[in-house]
């Protein structure tokens, strides 16, 4: 009998200690942050009037936390927050507005001072926006714009212009194929705002310039492996000689397409255009297999998110839409940008 009790106790202790360990970790890292914050605050003391002993805490719900694009974005958020003397927590919203709503409610109960909202998609933003407004805390929207119906309620949005990225890519293709031609086009994920808005502007630009997209919509779910398989099938179907250019929505997909082209001995013969700041894109631009990219720097985006929120916290004026700097990047501009 006593043994059994012991077992139960040990098990319970184990679980509790696991979580105590977690919190201890947190607090120890907190104290580290705090000391660093003290250092930065000392430097910036003249700028800030705040005398608070504890730094203000920012909470961010990122709907696509684990996506490769978000790794540098989260890092950008963390570093900028540390620089400005905030404590920050970022959680994974798992692509669900409902979960994000629950996370924000928990964060408000926990007493966070400011919020960053990285939406799952435009359509589901209204209830979350309504809630965020009702909290009375400073908050911003990051990466994806909200539904037009609630646009007015958002203090500030920090996002790239996805349609702009699309037309940048399309323009590169048009410059390369001035007399028109045939391209294959690999898209990200069905239902994603990024994918749909890029596609919209790419289709319309191509239509005006006599460029034909050979394939129908095909989604690689951002995965290089799937994109490689797709590219192999395109080569089979259309024949290498009939494909003038490969259009990809990001670096991961380009990586896959490149692997397929390489295996078929077409690397450098069939060229591509893509978007994003992945290392593979930089390398491909240098070795000539990629014409160029439309810049979308997640690190800068994350940092801009926190600095804009910082303005709101301090009661300064912040832009309604802070557009993340983008634009074309060809081989000459490569050293101007950061790559991941």
């Amino acid at each position: 009998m006593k043994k059994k009790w012991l077992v139960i106790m040990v098990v319970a202790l184990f679980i509790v200690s696991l979580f105590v360990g977690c919190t201890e970790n947190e607090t120890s890292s907190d104290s580290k942050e705090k000391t660093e914050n003290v250092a930065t605050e000392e430097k910036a003391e003249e700028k800030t009037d705040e005398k608070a002993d504890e730094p203000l805490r920012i909470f961010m719900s990122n709907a696509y936390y684990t996506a490769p694009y978000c790794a540098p974005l989260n890092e950008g958020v963390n570093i900028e927050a540390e620089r400005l003397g905030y404590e920050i927590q970022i959680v994974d919203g798992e692509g669900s507005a409902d979960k994000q709503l629950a996370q924000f409610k928990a964060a408000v109960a926990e007493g966070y001072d400011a919020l960053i909202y990285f939406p799952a998609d435009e359509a589901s933003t209204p209830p979350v926006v309504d809630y965020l407004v009702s909290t009375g805390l400073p908050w911003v929207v990051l990466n994806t714009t909200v539904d037009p119906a609630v646009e007015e309620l958002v203090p500030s949005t920090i996002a790239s212009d996805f349609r702009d990225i699309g037309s940048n890519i399309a323009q590169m293709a048009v410059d390369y194929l001035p007399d028109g031609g045939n391209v294959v086009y690999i898209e990200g994920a069905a239902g994603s705002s990024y994918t749909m808005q890029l596609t919209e502007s790419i289709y319309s630009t191509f239509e005006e310039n006599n460029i034909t997209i050979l394939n129908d919509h095909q989604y690689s779910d951002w995965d290089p492996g799937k994109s490689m398989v797709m590219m192999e099938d395109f080569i089979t179907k259309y024949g290498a000689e009939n494909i003038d250019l490969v259009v990809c929505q990001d670096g991961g997909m380009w990586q896959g397409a490149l692997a397929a082209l390489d295996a078929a001995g077409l690397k450098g013969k069939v060229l591509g255009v893509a978007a994003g700041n992945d290392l593979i894109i930089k390398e491909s631009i240098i070795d000539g297999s990629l014409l160029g990219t439309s810049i979308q720097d997640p690190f800068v985006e994350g940092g801009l998110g926190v600095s804009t929120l910082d303005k709101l916290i301090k009661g300064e004026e912040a832009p309604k839409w802070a557009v993340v700097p983008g634009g074309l990047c060809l081989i000459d501009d490569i050293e101007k940008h950061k790559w991941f």
Partner: protein
Amino acid sequence: MLKIQDIKGKYIANVLRSYGVLIALIIIIIITSIIETNFFTIGNFINIIRQVSIIGIVACGMTFVIISGAFDLSVGSIVSLSGVVAISTINNGGGEALAIIYALLIGVSVGFVNGILISLINGKMGEAFIITYGTQTVVAALALFASGGLFVAGRIKPGIYKSIGKGIVPIVIFIVIAIGMQFILTKTKFGRQMCFIGGNIEAAKMSGIRVVANRTAYFMISGLLAGFAGIVLTSRVISSNPAGGMGFELDAIAAVVVGGTSLLGGNGSIVKTVLGAIILGVMRNALNVLNITAYPQMMVTGVIIILSVSLDILNRKAKEKELANEKL
């Protein structure tokens, strides 16, 4: 006369039913070849089997686990993690041999954890489901940690690692693994014990089979092959993706069951699994070559899975009827 015709008819019906999946495959090939001339070429078939080989390798391991009466949801994450670790080992100058060893070790050790936990608590389907779902989550998180959440482009020089994914090498590897696994399954004591355990675990225990060790071994084989699939995948794509193997577990299970191995455990065959993997691969390629958009492609895939397993069921029913008739 009549009798011979009858027998002939029966024979044909029998062939049709036993190889229902094969016939579905042939129908798809014929239809696609007629519509699209670029489909029926040796180049494309090599292309398809090469594409299939990665999932196929995973599915071979999955077959063992399914025969033994469980399933393994963690294989997708193992593919991701082993790929991530292999590529970053190479990028950090650790050498190709070491990268391969690490990747395989990861597969085996995750498999070991799965197997030992499930077999020690004498777990059935339910426990296997939750535990491998748990390791799936944990291993996926580890892959994110290891890669910093990023795509990592591989700095792979021409060598062993690169050649694993080149040309027909993945196909050869796939075939060798499949033959080896089929041999283990049908010709060794280990294989027979697997069927016994899957069929009736309590009886297997009574008869003195070391159930815990055996079951752990099945999961280790499944993990090992998933680790190997991670190597083949990264060698082909020349990069790693922390979510690169996401969904592989369901694809592998689909290949196993479309082939005709029952999820109830107790029997099955690697040859069938290979066939199942190929049918799914051919179908995907055919739909791509026919330029069918992503959404209808999903629907058609689902319908074909249902049709091919229905053929299998019809076959089994007919066989049962024949057996009953013979007894009468």
